[in-house]
C-alpha cells in the first residue's frame, strides 16, 4: 500500500523551544493512525505543518504525494481538517455554514445545498439544520465541523483531538462516524490524549512525547511490548494479595496458583492484560526522567 502521509526528520521550534525534534512517520493510504500524547507533546504542531498552516524548520513532509512546503495548494486540495475548537460561524445555522463552505469548495449553489442536506443527515444534524450554531451542544458543533471537512470528500483527513471536552454519548457518536470514515477508505490522522480513543479507532498508534515518537505499532503490538499478562490474586475483601507474571498459558496459570499458599480459597483470581496505559506511562516517564527511549 502506498503511503498517504510520509514524514522524515521533521523539526520545529517556537522561540527557541523545541516542539518537534525529528519526526519520522508513514501513514498508509486508507488507514487510521492515532497520534497519542500528553498536552504539549507537539501533536497540534505536527497537524499544523501537515495541513500547511505552519512551516517546519527542517525535514520534509509529503501528503498525498505532494510536499507541504513546496506544493501547499496541491496538499490543500486533498485534505480536510477538524481542529480542537469548532471552526464554524456561531451566528449562522448549520445549513448556512455548510452551504457557504460548499461554495468555497467550488460547488454550485444547488450542489452546495444538496451536499449540505446529505452531510447533515449523515452526521445526524438534520433536526437542527436551521438552528443557529450558537444553540448547538459541544458534540453537535464538532459534528458540524467534521461535516464541513467532509464536503469535498477529501482522501486524507486530519482530526485534532476530535472528542476533547465532549461527554460520553457525544464521544461514542463521533467514534462511530470516524470508524465509518475509516471503512470508506479515507486516510485519517487523528490526535488524542485518550488511550481508549486510540485503542478503539486506530489501526496503528504513534506515541508522541517531548517532540519525538517514542513508540509505534498496532494497539496489540504496543501492549505486548510492555511484557506479559499478570495474574492478580485478591482475598474476599478485594484486597490485592499478589501479582504474578505469567505467559498466558493454562500451564503458566496453574503454576502461578500452585505457587500461592493455600488458605485464601475464598479470594478471587483475575487475569490482566497490560493496558495501553501501562505502555504509555512506561514510555513517557522514561522521557521525563531523561532516559533515552
Amino acid at each position, binding site marked *: 500500500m502506498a503511503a498517504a502521509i510520509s514524514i522524515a526528520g521533521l523539526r520545529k521550534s517556537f522561540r527557541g523551544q523545541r516542539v518537534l525534534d525529528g519526526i519520522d512517520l508513514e501513514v498508509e*493510504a*486508507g488507514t487510521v493512525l492515532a497520534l497519542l500524547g500528553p498536552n504539549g507533546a507537539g501533536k*497540534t*504542531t505536527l497537524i*499544523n505543518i501537515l*495541513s*500547511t*498552516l*505552519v512551516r517546519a524548520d527542517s525535514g520534509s513532509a509529503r501528503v*498525498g*504525494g505532494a510536499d507541504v512546503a513546496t506544493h501547499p*495548494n*496541491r496538499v*490543500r*486540495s*486533498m*485534505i480536510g*481538517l477538524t*481542529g*480542537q*475548537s*469548532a*471552526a*464554524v*460561524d*456561531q*451566528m*449562522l445555522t448549520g445549513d*448556512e455554514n455548510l452551504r*457557504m463552505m460548499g*461554495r*468555497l*469548495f*467550488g460547488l454550485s449553489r444547488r450542489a452546495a445545498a444538496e451536499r449540505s442536506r446529505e452531510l447533515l443527515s449523515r452526521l445526524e444534524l438534520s433536526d437542527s439544520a436551521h438552528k*443557529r450554531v450558537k444553540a448547538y451542544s459541544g458534540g453537535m458543533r464538532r459534528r458540524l465541523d467534521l461535516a*464541513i471537512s467532509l464536503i*469535498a*470528500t477529501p*482522501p486524507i483527513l486530519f482530526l*485534532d483531538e476530535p472528542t476533547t471536552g465532549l461527554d460520553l454519548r457525544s464521544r461514542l457518536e463521533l467514534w462511530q462516524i470516524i470508524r465509518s470514515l475509516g471503512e*470508506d*477508505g*479515507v486516510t485519517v490522522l487523528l490526535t488524542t490524549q485518550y488511550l481508549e480513543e486510540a485503542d478503539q479507532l486506530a489501526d496503528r498508534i504513534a506515541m508522541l512525547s517531548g517532540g519525538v515518537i517514542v513508540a509505534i505499532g498496532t494497539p496489540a503490538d504496543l501492549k505486548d511490548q510492555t511484557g506479559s499478562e499478570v495474574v492478580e490474586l485478591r482475598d474476599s475483601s478485594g484486597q490485592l494479595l499478589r501479582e504474578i507474571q505469567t505467559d498466558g498459558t493454562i500451564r503458566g496459570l496453574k503454576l502461578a496458583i500452585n505457587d500461592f499458599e493455600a488458605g485464601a480459597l475464598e479470594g478471587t483470581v483475575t487475569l490482566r492484560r497490560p493496558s495501553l496505559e501501562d505502555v504509555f506511562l512506561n514510555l513517557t516517564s522514561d522521557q521525563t526522567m531523561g532516559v533515552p527511549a
Partner: protein
Amino acid sequence: MTTTTEARPKLGFGAEEATFIGRSIRLSLRNPETLLMAVLLPVMIMLLFTFVFGGSIDPSGGYVDYVVPGIILLCAGFGASSTAVDVATDMETGIIDRFRTMQIRSWAVLTGHVVASLARNLLATGIVIGVAIAVGFRPTAGPIEWLGAIAVVALYILAITYLFAAIGLASGSPSAANGYGFILLFLPYLSSAFVRIETLPEWLRGVAEHQPLTPVIETIRGLLMGPAPEGVALVAVGWCLLILFLAVVWGAVMFRRKGGRR
C-alpha cells in the same frame, strides 16, 4: 475508495470575495445590537453637543452646522472598530485557519469584513445625517458637493476599517480587539470636530492641526457648508491613502504570520 489525486476545480474569479462578502453582511445582520450601537452612540453625542454644549460654544444657535461633519467621522470610526472584533473572533474560532487549509484565496475573508463594514457604516452615516437635518442641520451643498463628501467619508471608512482589520489580526482576543475602538472615539476630540482649533491651548493646537482627522473633517465641512481651506482635500485624501496602504501591508504581514494559532 475516494482517492482523487487531481486538484479540485479552481473557483471562478471573485467567487471567494462574493461568498465572504455575503457571509460578513449576513453576520452583521445577525448582530443587530452592534449595528444599533454604531448608530445610536454618534446620534446621542450629536444631540448632546447640539443641545447641551452647543448654546455655550456658539450662542447664535448655528453649532449644529459646525459639529455634524465631525459627528459623521465619529460615527464612521466607531462603526468600523467592530471589524477588529469580527476579525479577532474569526482568528479565535479557528475559522481563518480552516480557510487557509482550503484551496482558496483565504485573504478574501478580510475583504468580506471590510466591504460589509463599508456598507454598514455608510448606512449609519446616512441615518446620522437624517437625524442631523431633523434637528436643524442645513447644509449648503449641491449634488456634486454631496457626492464629493460621501466619497471622502467612504474613503475614510475604508482606510480605518482596514486598519481595524489589521488590529483584529494582531490582537490576541476579541475583547482585546474591542478596546482599540475607543481610541478612535477620542481622536475626534483632539481635532477641529467640536471646537475651532484656535481655541485650544498652544501645545494641543499642534497635535490637532497635524492629525489626520482634522483635514478630513475640514474637507467634509467645506463640501457641505461652504468653501474649505485651499488644498485641504488633497491632504485629507493623502492621509486616507497612507493609512489604507500601511494597514493593508500590516494586515498582510499579520495574516501570514498568525497561521496555526488555534
